[in-house]
């Protein structure tokens, strides 16, 4: 899967799971604000990514990922390492 396809797939997945307009998801937009995440729904972000891409993001590492571009890089690197 090339990077653009991966990003498009991830954005659609997150838009559906967190019920936001996919157009609001940009590389430089803040994950927490865009997806309206609270301390509990962060767990769902980890779960939906793990279920779809087989990549588990430890909670502490997720906290370091502030914007979507960081999330894309993190997951895509893990996919490529497989």
């Amino acid at each position: 899967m090339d990077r653009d396809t991966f990003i498009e797939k991830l954005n659609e997945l997150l838009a559906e799971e967190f019920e936001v307009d996919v157009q609001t998801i940009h590389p430089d937009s803040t994950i927490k604000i865009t997806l309206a995440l609270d301390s509990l729904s962060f767990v769902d972000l980890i779960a939906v990514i793990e279920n779809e891409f087989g990549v588990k993001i430890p909670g502490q590492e997720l906290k370091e990922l502030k914007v979507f571009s960081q999330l894309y890089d993190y997951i895509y690197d893990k996919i490529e390492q497989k």
Partner: protein
Amino acid sequence: MGVYSCLGKNLDEVRESLYNGKSGIIFDPVRKEMGFRSALTAHLEIPDLKGQVSRNQRVYMPEQAKYAYVATTEALRNARLDQDYIDSHEIGLLYGNDSTADAVVKSVDTMREKKDTTLVGSGAIFQSMNSTVTMNLGCLFRLKGINLTVSGACASGSHAIGLGSLLIKWGLQDCIVCGGAQEVNPYSIGSFDGINAFSTRESDPTKASRPFDRDRDGLVPGGGAATVIIESYESAVKRGAPILAEVIGYGFSSNGDHMSVPNVDGPSRSLEMCLREAHVDKKDIAYINAHATSTPVGDKNEAKAIANVFEGYKPVVASTKAMTGHEMWMAGSSEIVYSMLMMQNDFIAPNINFENPDEDSARLNIPAKRLDTHFDMFLSNSFGFGGTNSTLIVKRFTK
């Protein structure tokens, strides 16, 4: 009041079903594929709350919390309790619920398959706790008074209203959201099916639930949610609430006997206590909404208890479970709502499928057809596994 059941998605729809004796029971082929002895069930859709409740709140809600949300929204609206009033007063919450099987089964399945607890998601813990309905309603409606789930098996919803009436009587709360909710998914009642408690009259689903009928062969599981707002007279008058009726009696007892087989003594004591607490003569009771679930022993012993306690007088006795099936944790509340709808609209719903009495039900006045009649007071029985019994008496409000 508010309700969401197999008879309708709101009070108007439910009133029509009750009036016309319409059954909400179907044959569910999925249950047959799952190995159920009986695939009969009440049928209702799980409400789609997208657009009404946020995604982050909806993930905490199992189906019974969704039913309860719809019923409570209707009840608050009818009671003219808006969010501003709720935010500035300590409104309580007592709701009956006694299972969360679907949520528990799904989380355990995920843990077993994935070996990763994160994958059960953020909502699983809140859906899996027995207090899930009160947790959800308390947060969604921002209620600030007592917040407690009442788990009393199939009498849960009745005990919730009874206990609420005591808290108000004692001056500890002015207004309480009371009710009962029941999940309808197959997992929740698979083990119940396993003990041969359900009717197997699968060829004729709407005829399967036959309370008091000689040929009854078991209950049919149902569910949904029903909410009533109970309030002190002073509080209701002060805010100009539409007062519908008064809870004038609450009786309770425990059989101290068998796990699943009801006796006559326990229900009799609950009935007698309720009449005593209400300070009414038994002849003031026009209608008894019986617990009668359509099981051979349960109906027989309730018929004996009613006949004994009401000796010398025959109020109308009927069980709405003929139409709804057994709504279990919800039943004690929904049957107050059903009876209230009848009292408001001058009819008593038919005990459909009552074709032939047995020797015990022959002692009661059970109408197979609807009665168009005015009445001012009714009694509602609810009994549950473990021998818990609850009885309520409700009187039409007059100034």
